[in-house]
């Protein structure tokens, strides 16, 4: 769907495809590329489960 409201996410179609393949919500990511561009790397990182389960809030 064309983004109707606001400026669309800054990522190439192929990066957006990767996000879809990996089940990552690209709109929730913060890009590390120039100008905040979301890279393939950013998407892959988002799928990495933290090695140790996060500590429960006290």
């Amino acid at each position: 769907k064309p983004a109707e409201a606001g400026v669309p996410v800054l990522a190439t179609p192929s990066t957006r495809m990767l996000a879809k393949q990996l089940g990552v919500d690209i709109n929730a990511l913060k890009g590390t590329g120039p100008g905040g561009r979301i890279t393939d790397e950013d998407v892959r990182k988002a799928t990495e489960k933290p090695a140790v389960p996060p500590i429960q809030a006290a």
Partner: protein
Amino acid sequence: MVVGDIEVGTDVLIAGAGPAGYTAAIRCARLGLDVTLIDRNELGGVCLHKGCIPVKALLHVFRLVEDCRRAADMGVKADGVAVDLKKAYEWKDAVVKRLEHGIRELCQASGVQVMEGSCSFLSSSKAVVSGPSGTQRVTFRRAVIATGARHKPLPGLPFDGKSVLSPDDAIYLDRLPDDVVILGGGYAAITIGALMAAGGMKPTIIHKGERMLSFVDRDLIRPVIKKFGEKGVKVFQASSWSVERMDDGLRVEFEHDGVKEQAETKTLVVAIGMLANTDGMGLENTGVRLDGDGFVMADENFRTDDPAFYAIGDVKCGHCNASIAFWEGMSLAGILAGRPGWPGYMAVPQTISTDPEIASAGYTEEKAKEAGIEAIVGRFPFTANGKAVSMGKAEGFVKVIAEKGTHRILGVHVVGPGAFDILQEGVLAIEMGARLEDIMLTLHPHPTLCEAVKEACAAALRESTSIIEKS
């Protein structure tokens, strides 16, 4: 597919062989699925038989005649330049036939099962197809609804193919009457109006919206309105209208600028909206949900409320055209084969075959304002483009919309020569998240029409050396 005396079984049944359906079918087959493609007409849908392609084939001929007539000053000697309508239709038919043959071959080579007939559903796993060779039951695991849409008639005034025409009937006129009235101001109405004008007719266009082609900025329309005027095409904005059948034609009454006007015509084209081709398809026997005009409710992965059913193309709720239909066919085929669908696109290229042509994608100035985006705008006229001047077509301009600060390109709009092709650099720019500088720093061949896109980007940055900038 197992063919029995009574029943045919298939994994994927696709109803409708327009751009959406045949693309999905071929891709499904290539991905190894068992797929059956059903259409009550020939392959190719509205796009090939009554829409995009016939319009372009006829326009090509009409425009060549126009160009040739206007070119005496340029050194083109020719006498009695005119359209031979019979031959032009034959040409159009030959083009359609050739492309239809291509689709058929592609289906065959990919292993798509093609069935001719009208498809309706008995349940979420059974359909009947009634065609020239009788009626056949088909069982399926998944079904794709790709049956497209048709033009909506005026209440009480059904299309008769003679005096009350839908836009696609208008492509089959065997003469070019002078007194046509077109009701509507959207894509289809203006396309038909422009085709008729190119063929030398002088239709009257009456529309109800605030302006014709309201999805593009007002300034893009201006060169088209001017050309319409020069060709004797009248355009009226009406606050209301009514149509009455008379003995030998129709009378259209409408209110324009507070004044009652009327137009009499033998040929009325009605292009006021669409209805989905879902009636009589037995969808009430399934879980598929429709809206008031029959359009299928589906999500961005084309899933309907019935888990066995998908919908793509014009039949689906929401804006569509042939390029979206192809895209959805590709994406859905992947989904049916167990892949994720394609990610959403950001920009829909719109192309309108007016004179000059309009092509538009992404945010318009007006929409950017509405969305609260602070935008910078660059504009470049074709009068300053060497190629356009050398073609004698230095009309119109390119306009680029970018986000202030980041310079990210959000919209590209062209009215002028070659609009349909030069737009595409801008469409890719929007999808890639390119900045104005990205296009400005990229070499553009000279002298070409596509340089105008670069210059519009430079103008947005106040860096164009090809126009006089007010500072």
